[in-house]
């Protein structure tokens, strides 16, 4: 093997990823970034120092073997890299694109202490995309067991939980409220950031595992949780319904026409394809000058969608400063490139009526940063006498979500005081056999955390059902010498080809 790498010997600059020019991309929905080629990926892999203490692995919420998969890329073995990745994550093409890497894996990468960190997300996306293009899957042969499992919600939490349980042999049905599966990946995150084909490919993989999707099904309404575990005979249930309920700020003018939630805007645009109106029937109703309140990923997506829909000016109104903006660094950067006008330290206090129940503008108050609050971020405080008026005809709220009330209304689930589902360390809810994870437990978080929760719940559900974990050598008491193999040599993930 070559000489040990050091921070001086590796390529100093990060391998750039080709991006479409801002002026061109800001008017269509095709993807902004183009992904690495094999050569680019190999070159970037050469920047990894294979640190023995692996800080990046601890930075990843699901603990992906990052140096392990990067090593395979370096050797030109993309399939090998895929197998390493899928030991932990099910959605590399998605998380490589949408993880906030700068606060997770890349944020703690050793190289990042003196240079730009290794582009872990881009490498992961490269492998994930290659797998989709080549039709790889890490499908183990599945030995059916006798259990049937219901998954409520088809976002990343539900998808991950479904996959693991299907691999363990359970007959899995995913119930989804919308007409198409995918959760936020489908209705929330726009195509220019996460193309629909990527989501379709991941769903297709799940169906190849034998998972059934039953769309147009709202649990709590068509079937209650009691029915699922009772008369319908599901042995266990996982709830991954997300934290979809939008919040508004409770300021005057909120019910004016032209005031909408980012969820509504994005659902109309992405799921209902309102951007193709009138070829598609769903209208969108976004004007020429749009003010988006908030600075998280949802806000960035809403702003960039409005630009692409032809808005002349899109404003971002956020009460803290740029440093506190919760969006992924890359999205904020792309939004700036595309010409969004940012009003930092600006808090909306009233939406102004144009006299016809439409929006004429947004009255705001300037803020300054005071003492740090409980979250450690400096608390914005109003500057007296600093009110300004911003002209706009559409106001989009992207200031966070609440727990959806339907399951709480219709089942005896223990909820916390904000309405999220309470779970124990096994992700079990107060109802026997019912588990939960993802945004409906934690509040709005990230794709990878939701996926991780889905997998942890799947592991707990396997224990609950008494199924062996295929990752752990299983030694039933008393038959240690069966067929002359020691227990740990036996391959329990083996099995029948469907």
């Amino acid at each position, binding site marked *: 093997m070559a000489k040990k790498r050091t921070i001086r010997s590796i390529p100093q600059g990060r391998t750039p990823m080709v991006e479409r020019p801002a002026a061109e991309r800001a008017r269509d929905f095709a993807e902004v970034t183009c992904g690495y080629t094999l050569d680019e990926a190999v070159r970037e892999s050469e920047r990894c120092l294979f640190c023995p203490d692996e800080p990046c692995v601890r930075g990843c919420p699901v603990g992906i073997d990052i140096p392990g998969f990067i090593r395979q890329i370096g050797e030109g073995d993309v399939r090998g890299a895929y197998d390493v990745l899928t030991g932990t994550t099910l959605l590399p093409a998605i998380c490589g694109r949408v993880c906030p890497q700068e606060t997770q894996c890349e944020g703690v990468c050793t190289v990042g202490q003196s240079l730009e960190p290794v582009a872990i997300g881009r490498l992961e996306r490269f492998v994930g995309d290659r797998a989709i293009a080549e039709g790889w899957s890490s499908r183990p042969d599945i030995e059916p067991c006798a259990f049937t499992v219901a998954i409520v919600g088809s976002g990343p939490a539900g998808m991950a939980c479904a996959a693991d349980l299907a691999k363990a042999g359970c007959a899995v049905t995913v119930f989804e*409220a919308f007409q198409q599966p995918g959760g936020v990946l489908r209705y929330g995150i726009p195509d220019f950031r996460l193309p629909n084909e990527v989501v379709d490919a991941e769903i297709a993989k799940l169906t190849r595992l034998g998972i059934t999707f039953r769309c147009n099904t709202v649990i709590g309404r068509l079937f209650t949780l009691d029915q699922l575990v009772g008369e319908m005979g599901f042995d266990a249930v996982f709830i991954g319904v997300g934290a*979809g*309920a939008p919040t508004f700020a409770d300021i005057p003018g909120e019910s004016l026409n032209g005031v909408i939630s980012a969820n509504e805007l994005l659902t109309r645009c992405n799921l209902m394809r309102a951007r193709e109106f009138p070829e598609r*029937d769903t209208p969108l109703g976004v004007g020429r000058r749009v003010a988006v309140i908030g600075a998280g990923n949802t806000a960035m997506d809403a702003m960039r969608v409005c630009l692409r829909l032809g808005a002349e000016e899109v404003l971002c109104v956020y009460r803290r400063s740029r440093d506190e903006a919760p969006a992924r660094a890359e999205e904020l950067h792309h939004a700036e490139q595309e010409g969004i006008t940012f009003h930092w330290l600006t808090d909306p206090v009233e939406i102004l009526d144009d006299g016809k129940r439409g929006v004429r503008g947004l009255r705001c108050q300037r803020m300054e940063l005071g003492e740090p609050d409980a979250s450690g971020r400096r608390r914005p405080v109003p500057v007296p006498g600093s009110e300004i008026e911003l002209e706009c005809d559409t106001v989009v709220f992207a200031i966070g979500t609440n727990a959806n009330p339907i399951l709480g209304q219709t089942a005896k689930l223990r909820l916390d005081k904000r309405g999220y589902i309470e779970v124990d360390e096994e992700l079990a809810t107060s109802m026997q056999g019912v588990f939960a994870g993802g945004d409906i437990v934690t509040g709005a978080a990230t794709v990878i955390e939701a996926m991780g929760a889905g997998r942890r719940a799947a592991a707990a559900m396997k224990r609950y059902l008494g199924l062996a974990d295929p990752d752990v050598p299983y030694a039933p008491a008393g038959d240690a010498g069966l067929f002359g193999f020691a227990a740990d040599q036996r391959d329990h993930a083996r099995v029948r080809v469907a």
Partner: protein
Amino acid sequence: MSVADVAYDIVGREDFSDVTYLLEIREPDLARAARPGQFVIVMSHPEGERVPLTIADFDRDRGTITLVIQAMGKTTREMQAGLRPGSSLYALVGPLGRPSEIGTAKTVVCVGGGLGVAPIYPQARALKERGAYVIGVIGFRNKTLVFWEDKFRAVCDEFIICSDDGSVGIKGLVTDGIKQATAAHPDIDELIAIGPPIMMRGCAEVTRALGIHTVVSLNPIMVDGTGMCGGCRVKVGGRTRFACVDGPEFDAHQVDFDDLMFRLARFKPEEKIALERWQQGCRIESAPSVP
């Protein structure tokens, strides 16, 4: 994609007038789960819009639900033109919304204005089954639009029909019918009204003066029907509520009807474009083809 095969087949259709039609759809799970006061969201084809429609009836033995639809704009007219027994819907989700509280009121007035006769029917029936004294008040613009008169009458102890032009029943609005009922029955405990917002507001005004508890079913513009878009928000008692999960029924005396009516006009320009474009398409299609 291996999506579970749930078909949403149309098994019945009836046309009440040029603008109102009934569809009966087979979906046994939905028929079993449906309760009075709930609604469904329908997509007739994959490019279509999600349209909320009240469950006007359900038959658990046949495994069907019934929708009564007024052809208003593009989608409801396209459905009127295209859907009949043998065809099916692309998507059907429900039952959505909180079921009506059938309550304990002894004497109840059920008011249906125009198309509202359909959604109020299952409530009147449930009240009757519970043993309440049900006074039905239904109103139409004129005689040709009347539907379900017999069906409705059968679940009412008293029945008043009104029409704007006097071509059937008493000449006047449903509010006149309500006044007649309240004059005869000072013991009315509750009134439930479903119809156009302006009618529901009128009913609320009459009963407010009389101190009768009044429930209305609101019909704001919706997308998902599960509480995740906020498009259906309405003002009730000064608070913002989401009609699809907190409603659709609310205390009429708390509802801000002006707000509802303005919000319903949100997409007027787009609705016009969609309708005109569709009507043009129809003309082209139905034009004799040139050999």
